[in-house]
């Protein structure tokens, strides 16, 4: 990394600048399993450095070593010229290293404002007593939150009551509140839509201009190209490449990460017959409060993937919850192959062959006390069992076979299916959840942000699976805030706004601009 | 019924036959006398505060007089004094209130109808000592819940009596928290570690019945004496059947009836016993129930 050719100077000629932080020969074992095997990384001011790599390559682990959450098993960290065998969270914070974690670490019970200042609340004196200075906090917070696009956000509301995107933005804002010299962003955009992402990038550029060093982790190559100056690639715990983004093509980056070129588009090959009976027909679904989802009807035909695009908070997730019976409805019908299957709760939904990959894997997705095997097997076991999923014995042998199959098919990177799901990297956790739903052989599948945090290789695998399911005659719905993904997979795109489908566009002709213009169209 | 009854009586508890019998005795007497009486009790024998509050709350109703059986010598002194100061006669039942504390609070009772629990314990122990005769032997005490005034007094009385006798040896004194099942287990364990044990004295009958079961389980029925306290119906039945050796009984119904009678008299008399003078004392005698 440090031995780049001098003529490959960055935008501001940063090669001359000494690194703020150097990580040299970093090694890390979990139990006996090596995760990092001598990684070097230099972090220079005024530069956006992108860290790339497959799920489980060790990116988050490396960053957690930098911020003091994990202790490295080898190597050294040089902060401002002083070498340390490890850093503590305090040291990292004092050195101006600030991180946006991949897994949200906001405190749900606290207000947005307090989350922004947690651990360093400012105080003023009132009658000689130090009290928290809310005014000062609000003023400081308001400016940063406004810059991130959350104008008018109720800063005193507990973040637990906010949509996940807002929490992500607060997490980002939190790291920007401090006096940062090194800003680590571990997949900050995975729950953001393009609008918010743009605002974030504007801010990143400004910080770079001010001389902040930025480490950026993302699986979205378009973003990487847009914001990154230099990059390094991790593969299986070793650095396999580095350079300047501008000198590299996306295909090169993918090859460095995955070892092959991946397919990008997965639209239906033939034409879809929209005159025959639809596989799935949704009629007049309205949420119980008649506000978040209002009178939604649509059809999904044989061989078709229907996408749902829209701004954050437009109510797509609420609609999916209503379809799956996870949220009470005021009315509406769900018809599968001509048969009314309208579920009143997820048990009925699963029983009638629906699958629903939720958008928040930590909160509504995985079972943290289970192994990979348990996570994959439990839903199938519920689906197969009589008496609302309660009757019968666990068939370990069959379940292991199912879990192994999903592990292979989705190439889940793990020590084995007996590993706790908590020990997996974010992307691999997501794959386990995909595997859990694949294993029940569903007829209707709802993917809500299916590739959040998934690497390019795995992403194309999942897209391939989605396409295969559609081809096999299943009704496939995909909600995504990542427009390129929508365009890559969906044959039609329902654009959602304020709890309603505003328009359904043809996937082959739709563009990011055409979708956004509908999503942001004025009037209710 | 929003009408106030004439009298209020605050008991220690009602979740035990002894106190249920007392309640029945009071109610029967009330019928005789043609008065109305409200009988209430603390929710648990450990909750001094709740009994205090109960008395305080009763003060806010317009009763003519109060009877009270305090959970400890001092926990009801304040409300009792408040009642006295409102001009209401008060009668002390069962557990004797601390006289000095009451006097200092500027109050006096019309009568004491109380038991000397130290004597009760002594009586039970004395009976055991007599039964063991010249041979003497090892004995044990099964205590109530630690910190309970009557239980502590009974334990103290029995312990003193045992220790004053040279050929009797007190080998264990363990708590069973007034619980029958615990008493069963505790007694079993004591029998394990003291195989030569000759007798148990138990601070109440509930525990004595558990101990009796333990003795029987150990195949020592008749060989190990079990003496309880209270004279509860089941215990009396067991004594009659020869399974329990004895119980130190009081007549709770009579205690209750006497208390109410004295209270009604005091109200009729219309003036309170002045502070510092000796009130009427009715010592409740305990009798030994044996086969």
């Amino acid at each position, binding site marked *: 990394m440090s031995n780049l050719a001098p003529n490959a100077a960055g935008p501001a000629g940063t090669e001359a600048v000494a690194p703020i932080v150097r990580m040299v020969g970093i090694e890390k074992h979990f139990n006996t399993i090596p995760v990092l095997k001598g990684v070097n990384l230099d972090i220079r001011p005024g530069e956006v450095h992108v860290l790339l790599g497959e799920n489980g390559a060790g990116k988050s682990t490396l960053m957690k070593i930098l911020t003091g959450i994990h202790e490295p098993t080898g190597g050294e960290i040089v902060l401002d010229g002083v070498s340390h065998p490890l850093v503590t969270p305090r040291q990292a914070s004092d050195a101006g290293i600030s991180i946006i974690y991949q897994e949200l670490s906001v*405190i749900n*019970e606290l207000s947005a404002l307090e989350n922004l200042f*947690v651990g360093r609340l400012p105080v003023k004196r009132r009658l000689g007593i130090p009290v*928290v200075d809310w005014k000062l906090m609000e003023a400081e917070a308001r400016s940063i939150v406004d810059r991130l696009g959350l104008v008018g956000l109720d800063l005193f509301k507990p973040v637990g009551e906010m949509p996940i995107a807002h929490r992500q933005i607060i997490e980002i804002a939190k790291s920007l509140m401090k006096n940062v010299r090194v800003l680590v962003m571990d997949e900050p955009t995975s729950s953001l839509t393009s609008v918010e992402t743009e605002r974030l990038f504007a801010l990143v550029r400004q910080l770079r201009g001010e001389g902040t060093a930025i480490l950026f982790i993302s699986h979205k190559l378009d973003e990487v190209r847009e914001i990154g100056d230099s990059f390094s690639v991790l593969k299986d715990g070793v650095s396999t490449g580095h350079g300047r983004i501008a000198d590299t093509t996306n295909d090169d980056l993918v090859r460095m990460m995955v070892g092959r070129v991946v397919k990008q588009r997965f639209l239906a090959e033939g034409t879809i017959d929209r005159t025959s009976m639809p596989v799935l027909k949704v009629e007049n679904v309205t949420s119980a409060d008649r506000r978040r989802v209002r009178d939604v009807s649509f059809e999904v035909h044989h061989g078709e993937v229907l996408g749902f695009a829209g701004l954050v908070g437009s109510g797509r997730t609420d609609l999916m919850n209503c379809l799956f019976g996870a949220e009470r409805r005021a009315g509406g019908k769900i018809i599968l192959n001509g048969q009314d299957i309208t579920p009143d709760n997820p048990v009925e939904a699963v029983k009638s062959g629906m699958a629903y990959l939720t958008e928040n894997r930590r909160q509504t997705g995985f079972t943290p006390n289970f192994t990979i095997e348990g996570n994959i097997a439990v839903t199938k076991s519920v689906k197969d069992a009589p008496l609302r999923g309660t009757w019968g014995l666990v068939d370990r042998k069959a379940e292991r076979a199912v879990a192994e199959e999903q592990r292979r098919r989705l190439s889940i990177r793990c020590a084995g299916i007996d590993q706790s799901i908590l020990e997996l990297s974010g992307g691999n956790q997501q794959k386990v959840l995909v595997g859990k739903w694949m294993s029940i052989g569903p007829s209707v599948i709802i993917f809500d942000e299916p590739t959040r945090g998934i690497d390019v290789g795995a992403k194309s695998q999942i897209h391939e699976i989605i396409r295969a399911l559609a081809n096999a005659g299943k009704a496939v719905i995909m909600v995504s805030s990542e427009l390129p993904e929508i365009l890559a997979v969906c044959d039609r795109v329902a654009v959602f706004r304020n709890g309603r489908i505003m328009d359904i566009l043809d996937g082959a002709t739709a563009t990011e601009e055409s979708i956004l213009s509908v999503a942001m169209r004025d009037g209710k | 019924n929003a009408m106030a009854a004439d009298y209020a009586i605050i008991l220690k508890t009602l979740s035990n036959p002894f106190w249920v019998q007392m309640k029945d005795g009071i109610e029967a007497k009330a019928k005789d006398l043609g008065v109305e009486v409200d009988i209430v009790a603390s*929710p648990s024998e450990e909750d*001094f505060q709740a009994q205090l509050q109960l008395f305080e709350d009763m003060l806010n109703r317009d009763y003519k007089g109060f009877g009270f059986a305090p959970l400890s*010598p001092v926990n009801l002194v304040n409300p009792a004094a408040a009642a006295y100061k409102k001009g209401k006669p008060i009668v002390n039942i069962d557990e004797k209130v601390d006289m000095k504390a009451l006097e200092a609070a500027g109050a006096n009772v019309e009568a004491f109808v109380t038991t000397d629990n130290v004597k009760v314990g002594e009586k039970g122990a004395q009976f055991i000592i007599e039964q063991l005769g010249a041979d003497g032997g090892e004995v044990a005490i099964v205590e109530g819940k630690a*910190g309970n005034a009557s239980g502590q007094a009974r334990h103290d009385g029995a312990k003193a009596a045992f220790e004053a006798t040279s050929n009797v040896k007190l080998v264990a004194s363990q708590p069973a928290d007034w619980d029958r099942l615990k008493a069963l287990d505790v007694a079993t364990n004591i029998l394990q570690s003291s195989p030569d044990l000759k007798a148990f004295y138990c601070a109440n009958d509930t525990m004595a019945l558990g101990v009796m079961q333990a003795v029987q389980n150990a195949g020592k029925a008749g060989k190990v004496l079990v003496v309880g306290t209270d004279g509860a119906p089941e215990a009396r039945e067991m004594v009659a059947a020869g399974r329990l050796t004895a119980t130190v009984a009081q007549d709770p119904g009579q205690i209750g009836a006497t208390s109410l009678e004295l209270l009604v008299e005091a109200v009729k008399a219309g003036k309170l016993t002045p502070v510092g003078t000796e009130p009427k004392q009715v010592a409740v005698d305990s009798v030994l129930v044996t086969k």
Partner: protein
Amino acid sequence: MSQRVKLGKLWDIYGTLCILLVIVVLFSALSPTYFTRPENIVQIFLQSSITIMIALGEFFPILIAGIDLSVGSVLALTGMMTAQLMVAGFDPTLAVLIGGIGGGLTLGAINGLLVNFTGLHPFIITLGTNAIFRGVTMIISGASPVFGFSYDFVNTVTGFVGFVPVPVIFALSFAAVLWFFTAKTRLGRNIYAVGGNKESAFYSGIDVKLHTLIVFMISGLCAGLAGVLSIARLGAAEPAAGTGFETYAIAAVIIGGTSFFGGKGRIPSVVIGGLIIGTINNGLNILRVPTFYQLVVMGGLIISAVALDRLIARMR
């Protein structure tokens, strides 16, 4: 819609108060003569003061998703120490400082240090110390009540200011101090952060162990002060005092809307939770509900009070 949101927010804050009012109206209707007398209202406040004090302390361990089961024993032990010091001739103020305040802080610190050192759930730690503290109380007192201490002390603590009893003034002012503490100070807010998510708080530079220690010391302090109130009200230190009080305290805290999972709760609602328990107790006594039925009615009322609160909160 924004109307409804506002209503919801209001309910969060005043909901518990409304439940209290419903209960008061209920009892007033059932016993118009006695329940509503001014003396009785004062009485309710007086009787609730100890529950409120303990609940104020218990609030903090629950706020960090823990619990303190030892408050009843701490009350007994601190009360006993204070009483013995006074009987031994110490000045009441000094006795309260050493026995009540010092004792409470120390016992709380023991809990906190054990939790920190062993890393065990506070439930098991305070279950153990509850037995230990009770045993020590029995040992130092020989299981007999200690009484006969200064009347000045008793009279001061159980006196009145105007028509308001001193314990009420004391409990409410202490609640006000803690309210200020939780709402306005950095330490107070940090405790909420620890309660919300210990890991996040730790990585944000909050000393979680220190805050845990402080939390248990506050709990001990409140129980210690309640111990002082209790010996003054009883005129004696009872070795078995406070048995089972943790249940009332926890109930008051939960009725006051505090979450068992940490990070959520407000001091004023805890005070109202304590008043709800006190009012139910008083009302049942005033109505002369027979003892066993009291248990049934008490249990039923506690469940319905909290259920009503949450049902309305959900409907907003």
